[in-house]
C-alpha cells in the first residue's frame, strides 16, 4: 500500500483526536466524581440506578414522616404524663383527706380538683402548628371545652367537658407498604373501658362537697392510673417501633448508597491512574505527530 502524505496526517490526527476524547472523558469523570452521568454511559444499569435513587428519595421522605409521627407521639406522651401526675396528685391527696376530713382541707381539695381538671384539659388541648393534637382529624376544633355550672355549695365550677374532636386516626406512611399512627385522640386518654377521668374527678369533687367519704373513689382512681400507664406503654412501644424503623431506613440507605456509589461514582485512585496513562499516550501521540510531520524528503533535500 502506498502511504501518502494525507494518510500520514489523517492517521496521526485520528489517533490524536481519539486520545483527546478519552482524556476529556476521563477528566470529566474526575471533575464530576461520576462515571455514569447520562443513560448512554451505562444503559444496562439505568433502571437499577433509577430504582436505587427512588429508594433513597422515598426513604428520605419516610424519615421525615417518621420524625413527624415521633414528634406527635412525644407531644401525646407529655400530655398523658401530665394527666397521670394530676390524677396521682388527687389520689394521694384524697387518701390523706380520708384520714383527716376537716373543713379547710376539704375546701383545698375541692379547689385542687378544679385546678387538676383545668390542667388535664389544657394538656389535652395542646396545639401543634395551630392544630389540636388530640382532636383526631378535627384538628381545628378545641379538643375539650369545659361546661360550667353551680356546685351544691353554690360556687360555679366545671360540671363537664364536651369532646369536640373525633375518633379518626392520623396515619403517615413509613415505608412503601406500612403506615404508622401518629395521633392519639382525647377520648382514648380520658375514657377507660368503664370510666371517664373528667367525670370521675367531678364526681369526686361533688362527693367531697357533700361531705361523703372520698375513699370510695380510690379503686376508680387506681384503675384510671392503670389505664394511663397502659397508654404510656403503648406510646413507648409505638415510639420504639418508629425508631427501629428509622434505624432500618438508615441501614437501607447506607447499603443502597454504597451500591449506587459503586455503580455510578468514580473510583478516584483507578481513574487517576487511567488519566495519567491516557495523558502519557496523548503526549506520545503528539511526539509521533511532531516527528512524522518532520519526516519529509523535500525538507531533507
Amino acid at each position: 500500500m502506498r502511504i501518502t502524505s494525507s494518510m500520514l496526517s489523517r492517521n496521526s490526527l485520528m489517533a490524536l483526536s481519539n486520545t483527546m476524547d478519552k482524556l476529556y472523558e476521563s477528566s470529566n469523570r474526575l471533575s464530576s466524581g461520576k462515571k455514569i452521568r447520562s443513560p448512554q454511559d451505562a444503559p444496562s444499569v439505568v433502571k437499577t440506578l433509577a430504582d436505587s435513587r427512588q429508594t433513597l428519595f422515598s426513604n428520605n421522605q419516610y424519615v421525615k414522616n417518621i420524625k413527624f409521627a415521633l414528634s406527635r407521639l412525644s407531644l401525646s406522651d407529655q400530655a398523658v404524663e401530665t394527666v397521670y401526675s394530676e390524677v396521682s396528685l388527687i389520689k394521694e391527696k384524697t387518701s390523706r383527706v380520708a384520714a383527716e376530713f376537716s373543713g379547710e382541707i376539704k375546701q383545698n381539695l375541692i379547689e385542687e380538683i378544679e385546678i387538676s381538671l383545668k390542667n388535664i384539659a389544657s394538656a389535652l388541648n395542646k396545639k401543634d402548628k395551630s392544630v389540636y393534637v388530640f382532636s383526631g382529624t378535627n384538628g381545628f376544633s378545641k379538643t375539650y371545652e369545659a361546661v360550667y355550672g353551680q356546685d351544691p355549695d353554690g360556687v360555679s365550677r366545671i360540671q363537664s367537658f364536651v369532646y369536640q374532636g373525633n375518633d379518626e386516626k392520623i396515619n403517615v406512611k413509613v415505608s412503601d407498604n406500612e403506615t404508622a399512627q401518629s395521633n392519639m385522640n382525647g377520648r382514648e386518654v380520658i375514657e377507660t373501658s368503664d370510666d371517664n377521668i373528667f367525670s370521675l374527678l367531678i364526681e369526686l369533687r361533688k362527693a367531697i362537697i357533700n361531705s361523703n367519704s372520698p375513699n370510695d373513689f380510690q379503686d376508680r382512681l387506681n384503675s384510671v392510673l392503670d389505664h394511663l400507664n397502659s397508654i404510656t406503654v403503648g406510646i413507648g412501644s409505638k415510639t420504639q417501633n418508629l425508631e427501629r424503623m428509622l434505624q432500618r431506613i438508615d441501614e437501607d440507605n447506607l447499603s443502597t448508597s454504597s451500591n449506587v456509589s459503586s455503580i455510578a461514582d468514580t473510583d478516584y485512585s483507578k481513574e487517576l491512574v487511567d488519566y495519567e496513562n491516557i495523558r502519557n499516550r496523548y503526549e506520545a501521540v503528539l511526539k509521533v505527530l511532531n516527528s512524522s510531520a518532520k519526516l519529509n524528503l523535500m525538507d531533507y533535500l
Partner: protein
Amino acid sequence: MGNFSSLQIALSGLRAFTRANEVVGENIANVSNPAFKRREIVYEPLNQFSFAGSGVAISSIKRAIDYFAEKDLRSAISEDEKNKYLLSALPGIYEDVSSLSESGIYACFENFWAALQDLSADPQDISLRKIAIERGADLCSALNFAIEKSDTQSLRIYQSSQEYVETVNGKLKEIAELNKKIKENQASGFEVEDLKDRRDYILEEISQYLNLDVMENDEGYTVSIDGKTLVYGSIFKEIKVENLNSGDLMFTIPEYNCPVNIYSGRLYGCKIAMNENYNLQKSLKAIADSIASSGEKSFNKIHREGYDLYGNISQTDFFLIDAYGRVSVNQALISDPKKLAVASSTGVSDGSNAVKLSDFLKGDALDGESYFSYISSLSASWGFKLDNVRNNSYSSESIKTAALNRRDSISGISSDEETVKLLDIQRSYAAMAKYLNSSIKMVEELIEAVG
C-alpha cells in the same frame, strides 16, 4: 541514424521531462487538495525514423483513480455521516426523560410525590398545600416543555433535511453542468482532468447526505438513487422532502411523481431521528394523557372523591388537559389551595387522600407500570440507542478512515514519492542536456573537419 536525428532524440527527451517536471510540480502543489487525484505520466518511445529508440514522448497524463475504492469511500462516508448526525441530534431529544437528571420529568414526579407525602402528615397547612400544587404545576411544565421541545426538535430535523436536500440538488445540478462541460472540452481536445476531479469531489460531498449510484457512459456520470435517475448527461432532477407529521419524512422526485427510499447519509439520519423523536413524543403524551385522565383509575378520580379543607367533596379534577395536549393544574386549586382534596373525610387533619394520591403515582398507573418505572424504562431504552449510535459512530469512523486510506493509496499524493520522481526527472533532464551538448559538439567537429 544521422546527427540531426540524435539532436531530435535529445530535444524530445528535454520536452518530455520538462512536461513531466510540470506534472510532478502540480502533484506536489496539490498535496493538500482533497479534490485532486494524483497524475501519472505515461511515457512512450518515438518511432519517427521508423526504428525504435528515436526519442521519448509523454503519451498521456492519467488521473490515478479506482472507481471501486471511490464507491466504497462514498458509502463509508454516508454511513459515518448518518451516525454523526444521530449522535448530535438524539441527546437533545432524550435529555428531559433521563431518570438520572436532577431536573427532568422524573425528578418532577419525585418532588410532587414528596410534596403530597408532606401534606398527608400536615393537611391543614396552607403552605404545604401551595407547595403540593406548585410541584404539580412544575410537573405539568416539565411535561409540556418536553412535548413542545420535541415539536421544535421535529421542526429542526425537518428544516435540516430541507437544507440537506437543497444542497444535494445544487450539487446534482453542478454534476450535470460538469458532464456537459467535460463532453464539450473533450470534443475540442482540451484537458478535462481537473473537471473530472471536481465532479468526483462533488459526488464525495453528496455522499455526506445520501449515497448515490454512479455509472459512467458517453454522456458523463449517470447518477441515480433507488433505481431512479437523478442526473443523465446535462439533465438533472430535483429531490424534495416532505414532513408527513407521523414521525416520517418522505423523499420524492417531483418530476417522476414518485417517492424514493433513502437509506444512507445525513438524510437517513434525519429520517431515523424524526421517527425516534415522534416515538418519544408519543410516550410523553401518554404520560400527560394518563396524569390528566378522568377515568375510573386515575389521579383526578381520587382527587374528585376526596374532601377539601372546607369539608366538602371536591368533585374537581387536579390536572386538566387542553385541546393541544397541554396539561395544567386546575386553576380553582391554584386560586384556593384549601380546595385541594387531601382528606378522605370531613376532618381537616385527615391527609389520607393525599396518601392515596401519592400512592397512585407509585402504582401501576401507566400500562401496568408506575410513572417512575415507565420513565426509567424510557430512559434506559434511549441510553441503549445512544450507546449503539456512539459505538456505530466509532466503527463507522474507522471504516471511513480505512476507506479514505485505501482511496488515497491509489489517488493520493506522497510528497516523498513525488520528490524522488522529481529527482529522477531532473537527472534524466540533465542527461538529455548532456546528450544534446555532445550531439552539438559532434556536429560542430564534423563541420570543422569537412571545412
